[in-house]
C-alpha cells in the first residue's frame, strides 16, 4: 500500500497523475468556496452565542453586535432560574425526539420494505396510498378535528408524536435507497439459504441499508426536535408536556403579536411588552436548543457518508 501511495504521490507532485484530481487552482477555489460556505453557517451561531452573553444595556445601546459594550451571563443565570419549566420542556423535547424517531423509523422501514420487493402483490396499491397523501392533504381544520376528537390526541405526548409518525416522503427515500443498494440476488440468496422473510429483513437487508436508515433517522429526529406547531395546536391545558421549541416560539410570537397590535392595544401592549423576556434570554434558549442536535449530527453523519461509498455487491 505504502509503495503505491508513494508512487502515486510522486506522480502527483510531478503533475503527471491527473486522473480524478482537480488542478491546484480549482482545488484552491473550491477550498475558498467551501470555507466561505461553512463560515456562513457558523457565523450566525457564533453571533447568537455572543448575543446570549451580551448584557441587556449593551443590546439596548448598540443593538446586536459582535463586540458588545459589556458582557453578562445574566441570560443564562435567568434560564437556570426558570428551573422546572425549562428542564421539563428540555426533557420533553428529548423524549418526543427519541420515541418519535424510533417509532417513525421502524414504521418507515416496515412500510418501505414490501414496496421495494417486486414479488409483493399489492405493491402498486400501497405505493399509491402513501404517494397520494403527498399531493392531497385534508387541510388544517379537518386534520385538527380528526386528531383531537376522533383520535383523542390532545394534551398528551401522543399528540406531539403521532401526527408526524409517517411521512410518505421518507418512505419514498427509503424505498429508493433499498432499490439501489439491495440487489434482488441478495434476497434470493438469503431465501435459498433458508432465511424466512423476517430474518431476511432484519439480518440481511437492515445491515446493508444502515446508511439509509441513518439518513431517515436524521431527517425525522430533526423534524421532531424542531417541531412546535403541533404543540400550538394540541396543547391547551396540559402545558407540562410542552417541548423547548414551543417555549421559545411562544416568546417570539408574543413579541411579534405585540409589535403588530400595539397601536390597537395601547397601554396593555406596553405593559405586556415590559413583561417579555429579554433578547439575550431568547438567544440563550437558542443555544440550548441547538447544542444537543449539533452533538447528534456527527454520529448520523458517519453513516450518511458511508452510504455514499459502500454497497452490498461489489464489481
Amino acid at each position, binding site marked *: 500500500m505504502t509503495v503505491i501511495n508513494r508512487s502515486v504521490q510522486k506522480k502527483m507532485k510531478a503533475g503527471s497523475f491527473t486522473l480524478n484530481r482537480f488542478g491546484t487552482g480549482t482545488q484552491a477555489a473550491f477550498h475558498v468556496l467551501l470555507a466561505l460556505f461553512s463560515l456562513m453557517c457558523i457565523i450566525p451561531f457564533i453571533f447568537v452565542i455572543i448575543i446570549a452573553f451580551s448584557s441587556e444595556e449593551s443590546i439596548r445601546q448598540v443593538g446586536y453586535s459582535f463586540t458588545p459594550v459589556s458582557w453578562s451571563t445574566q441570560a443564562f443565570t435567568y434560564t437556570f432560574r426558570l428551573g422546572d419549566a425549562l428542564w421539563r420542556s428540555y426533557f420533553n423535547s428529548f423524549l418526543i425526539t427519541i420515541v418519535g424517531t424510533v417509532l417513525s423509523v421502524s414504521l418507515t422501514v416496515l412500510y418501505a420494505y414490501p414496496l421495494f420487493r417486486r414479488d409483493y402483490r399489492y405493491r402498486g396499491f400501497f405505493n399509491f396510498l402513501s404517494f397520494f397523501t403527498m399531493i392531497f392533504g385534508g387541510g388544517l381544520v379537518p386534520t385538527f378535528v380528526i386528531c383531537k376528537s376522533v383520535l383523542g390526541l390532545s394534551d398528551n405526548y401522543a399528540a406531539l408524536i403521532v401526527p408526524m409518525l409517517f411521512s410518505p416522503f421518507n418512505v419514498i427515500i427509503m424505498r429508493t435507497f433499498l432499490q439501489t443498494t439491495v440487489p434482488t440476488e441478495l434476497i434470493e440468496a438469503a431465501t435459498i439459504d433458508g432465511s424466512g422473510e423476517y430474518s431476511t429483513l432484519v439480518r440481511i437487508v437492515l445491515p446493508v441499508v444502515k446508511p439509509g436508515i441513518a439518513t431517515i433517522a436524521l431527517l425525522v429526529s430533526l423534524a421532531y426536535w424542531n417541531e412546535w406547531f403541533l404543540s400550538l395546536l394540541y396543547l*391547551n391545558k396540559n402545558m407540562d408536556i410542552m417541548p423547548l421549541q414551543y417555549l421559545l416560539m*411562544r416568546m417570539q410570537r408574543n413579541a411579534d403579536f405585540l409589535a403588530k397590535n400595539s397601536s390597537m392595544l*395601547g397601554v396593555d401592549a406596553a405593559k405586556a411588552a415590559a413583561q417579555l423576556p429579554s433578547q439575550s434570554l431568547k438567544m440563550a434558549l437558542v443555544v440550548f436548543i441547538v447544542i444537543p442536535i449539533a452533538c447528534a449530527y456527527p454520529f448520523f453523519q458517519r453513516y450518511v457518508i458511508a452510504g455514499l461509498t459502500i454497497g452490498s455487491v461489489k464489481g
Partner: protein
Amino acid sequence: MKKNLLSIILAVIAVIAIVFCFVFNGQKGDLEQKVKDLESQIETLKADAAKVAEDAAKAAEDAAKAAEEAAKAAEEEAARKAEEEAAKAAQELPTITIMFHGSNVSDDSAVLAKVNEYIADKVGAKLEVIWGTWGDFDEKAVNALTSVDKDVDIVFTCSWSADEYNSYAKKGYFLKLDDLIEQYGADLKAAIPESLMQAATIDGAEGKGIYAVNGFKDTATQNTWDVNVTLLNELGYTVDDLKAKGFFGWDEIFAKAKEVKGDSFYPFLVEPMVAERMVTNSIIVAGDAGSTNLLSLYLNPEDVSADGAYGNKLLNKFATDEYKAFANQMHKYYDAGYIDPALSVAETSNDARTNHQKDASYLIGTQSYAFGYEYSADVLARGAEIQFVPCTDPYVDTTASQGAMMAINSASEHPEEAFKFLALLNSDPVLMTLMNYGVEGIHYTLNDDGLVVFNADARATYSPWTNGVGNVTILPDTADEGKGFRESFKAYYAGAKGIPSLGFVFDNTPVENEMAALGNVAAQYALALDCGAVDPETELPAFLSALDAAGMQAYLDEANAQLEAYLAK
C-alpha cells in the same frame, strides 16, 4: 396431581406385566393360578384408577361451578359499582372551559383550587382554563371555534383579535345571550354600564342582540404625549412650553436635547401610527384593514362628541392635507436625527421603543393612554418623572368599547353554567380578584391600608392579562395605584363621551379583495412615511397612486355607504 397418579398406576401395571412375562417364561406350573391372581389385581387397580379419575372429574366440575359462581358474583359487584359511579357522575359538576388572551401563567393550580371551591355552589360547575398567550391565542381560538370544539365553552373575543366579535357573531360561532341575561344576569347588568351593553349589541346570526359579555375596562381612547419631565426640566423647558409650541414647533427643544445628551440620543420616541392619529385627530374605524388602517374618521379636538372637520365621512387618511403636513414634519424631524431609525422598521419598531422606554432615553414619546398608567410598575421603573399630556379628551369609539369581551361558544354543552360563571366573574369582587390577582397570601398580600402588594415571584407564575379577564373596576386597589384608584378610574371612563358614529362597524366582506390588496400596499409605505424615514414629496404621491390602483375608491365608497346607512337608522 391426578394425571401423575394415573401414570404411576399405569407404570405399576406395566411393571407387573413385565414381571408376569418373566414368571410366565420361567414357571409354567402354577401359571393359571397366577394369571387369575394378577387378573384380579389388575381389575382392582383398574377400578382404583377409574375411581381416581372419576374423583378428579368431579373435583374439576366442582371447581368450574365455584368459578362460575365467583364470576357471577363479580359481575354483580361490577354492575353495582358501575351503577354507583353513574349516580356519582350525575351528581358531579360539569366542567366549563374558558379561553383567555394575553396571559402569562405557568402555574394556576392554587388559583383554580380556590376558584372551584368558590363557584361549586354559585355556578354549579368546575372551571378549567386555557391560558392563551398573545402569540398563540388567535390560532387557538379560531381552531376551537371553526372546528366546533365542544370542549371550549367561553372564549375571549374583541374588535382586534382573529375571532373578531362582529364577524364571528354574524357567522354563528357565538351564542346569543339575551335570554340568559334576562334569566341570570341581574347582577351583571348592575355591574356593567348600560353603554357597554349597548356596544355589544349587534346584528348577529340570531338577530339583534348581545353575543358577548363586555368587560368593563379602559373603554375610552385617549392619545397622549409621553413626556420625560426630568429631562425636559434639565433642558430648561416645562410641559407648558411643549403645549404652547405644539407638534410643529419642537425643533428647538429636540436640538437642545441632542446637544446635551449627545449624537446617539434620539429625543422623539414615536409609535408612528399613534403619532399620526394624534396630530391629525383621526381615529380608527372598526372593521378597517388590520394593523395598517386605511380609513379615518376625523375627530373634533375641542368636543369629541361633535362632528369633526370633515363631518361624519370616512376618508382615505393618506390623501388629506393634515396627513401631508404631518408626514412633512416627521420627515424634517427624522432628517435632523431626532428619531431612532429602528422605529421605522416594522420588525424592530416595538422592541426599540420598549428599550428606550425602559431606561427613559427619550424626551417626548407617544402613548395611547389608559387611566392610571403613570402609576403602573413599568412606568415607575423608568427612573424618571413621566407625564402623559393628552391631545384631546378621552372618547369612546367602537374599537375601544369592544376591546375585551367574553363570548360563549355556540357549540358549548353547558351554556347556562358558562353564562352564570361569566356573570359572577364580572360582578363578584371575590372571584374577579381571585382570577386576576391570584390567592391572597400566595400571589399578593394586603398592606395596612388594605392595598394589594404583589409577591413578585409568585406573580411571575400567575399573571393573566388584567383587562382581558373582565370587569376590572371591582378589583381592589393596588399599592402602586393608591387608595381610591378604582373610583377615579370609573369616574374617568363614565365621563368619557362617545363619538358621533359610535357603534358603527365597517363590514368589509363585500370589499375583501380590495382590502387585502390595499393592506399590502399600505404595509409597504405607511410605516416609513409615518415615521418620516422617506421623503413625502416623492413617496406620498407614489403611495396614493398605488392605493388608487389597488381599488381605494371602491373600498371608500362601500365604507361610506355603510356609514350613511348606519347613521340613517
